[in-house]
């Protein structure tokens, strides 16, 4: 959690194939430590696939193959032995809110428990910290024993964020987190993310261009599995980004 110089993620010539379909066609870029990095682009542009490589959950898709190197905190994920530690280092929030069929407390305590934490005191601390960071604590603090799956969609998404924070990741990836939730909850989560960005690297995958503009420092534009352009937000969202397609996508001319 300490701010350190260097890159949180380094990706070089990453290619991912699903059988004959190439989902990522050789992308290279770095994500700096403790920045908010947005990835925008229409669907099918390979954004979610990229996240699956970051935490190696792509291993669960037997037809997927990837080449190139991906380094998390300087260590290559290609050859890593302890993928479980890697997955704890990279928190992932998926598009549709998933509350595990457990109590709210157990939802957040799940990851620490699976990593071997037993002490109730320690777990309570983690649960409260993460629910506060996800801006959910005040709404659920009196009913931590009730089911996570009974929460509203917006609450479940914040629960998912709390769960992703519970294993103390150094990188938090959000994959179109606002796709299934209401605008008010979206704004609350965005506020929560602003509070987090001093402590953690945030990768924000979104097809809401304005969300990237509000939150990120740099934005990458993906199209059909290729990285079209990557620059500071002032450039990407200006009238003169380097690539014409970026301008057209950002300004809603296609996408």
């Amino acid at each position, binding site marked *: 959690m300490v701010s350190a110089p260097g890159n949180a993620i380094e990706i070089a010539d990453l290619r991912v194939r699903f059988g004959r379909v190439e989902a990522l066609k050789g992308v290279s870029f770095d994500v700096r430590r403790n920045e908010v990095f947005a990835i925008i682009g229409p669907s099918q542009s390979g954004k979610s696939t990229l996240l699956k490589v970051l935490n190696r959950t792509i291993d669960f898709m037997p037809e997927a193959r990837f080449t190139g190197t991906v380094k998390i905190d300087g260590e290559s994920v290609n050859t890593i032995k302890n993928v*479980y530690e890697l997955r704890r280092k990279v928190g992932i929030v998926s598009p549709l809110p998933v509350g595990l069929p457990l109590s709210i407390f157990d939802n957040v305590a799940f990851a620490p428990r699976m990593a071997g934490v037993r002490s109730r005191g320690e777990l309570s601390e983690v649960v409260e910290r993460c629910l506060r960071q996800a801006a959910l604590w005040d709404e659920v603090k009196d009913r931590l024993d009730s089911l996570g799956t009974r929460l509203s969609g917006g609450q479940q998404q914040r629960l998912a964020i709390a769960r992703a924070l519970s294993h103390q990741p150094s990188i938090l990836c959000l994959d179109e987190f606002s796709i299934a939730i209401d605008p008010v909850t979206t704004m609350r989560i965005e506020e929560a993310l602003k509070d987090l960005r001093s402590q953690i690297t945030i990768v924000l995958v979104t097809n809401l261009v304005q969300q990237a503009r509000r939150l990120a420092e740099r934005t990458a534009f993906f199209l059909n599995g290729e990285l079209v352009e990557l620059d500071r937000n002032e450039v990407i969202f200006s009238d003169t980004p380097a690539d014409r397609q970026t301008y057209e996508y950002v300004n809603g001319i296609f996408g």
Partner: protein
Amino acid sequence: MFTETPFVRRKQMFERIARGVFVAMTSAIILPLIFVILYLFVKAFPILSLDFLIKNPVRGMRAGGIWSPFLGTIYLVVISLMISTPIGVLAGIYLNEYAKDNWLTRGINLAVVNLAGVPSIVHALFGLGAFVLFARLGRSILAASLTLAIMTLPVIIASTKEALASVPMQFREACWNVGATRWQTIRHIVLPNSISGILTGVILQVSRAAGETAPIMFTGAVFYKAIPEGNPFAYGLFDQCMALSMHLFTISTQVPDVPEALPYGTAIVLLGSVLLINALAIVLRVYLRSKKKW
């Protein structure tokens, strides 16, 4: 604006007809069932008593009770399910949770489905060849139980897989994303939410193992065998035994001059035990489902 047009009237008429047909068909299956049970019960009534359950058949199976076949059926059912349940459930977990989708897995799945549809007499022949003769177990409770286990195994595998597959994939992905292993995910999320379905599948096989005659006829069940009354451990693994299903067949067709109530009594005990176990299964399932969390 809200007037009833001829089109609406026709729709409503069809609605009533459809409903009527569905109700009629449902009654058509319920009524014979009730009739069968009542008929059996009335016919068996004169003989039903505790003695009927705990006394051996006597006088060439023309009198006495059904202790020996009753205990034999319990042995066969319990032992066969003790063999097929762990194997079937674990294999089902492997096939649904671990196995990659390749030609081998697809082949195994196809084999499981087809084996579930193999007639029981074929299992009987297999049991005779494999367990009685090849493995030299002889005609025994063990050989018969193994044969019943082989018969129930594919269905247990299939129902386990189905129960596991009903747990949404997104739960597994959420667990993997936070660094849980496959087994941790299965143990803490998948199994607790599918156990009711798995148990239902297993318990339905109790009725099948208890009811089938063919698989045990060649492999371990005998026409007649007296055992010590009142001793629940009267059979050994390598003994032959009587069984309710076969006893029913014997006294209804093979032995002359059997009092009418005797086969009906046997049938009602067989049916009653199966219904009792199914009722327990329903209670258990309702209890486990009440703990299901989504």
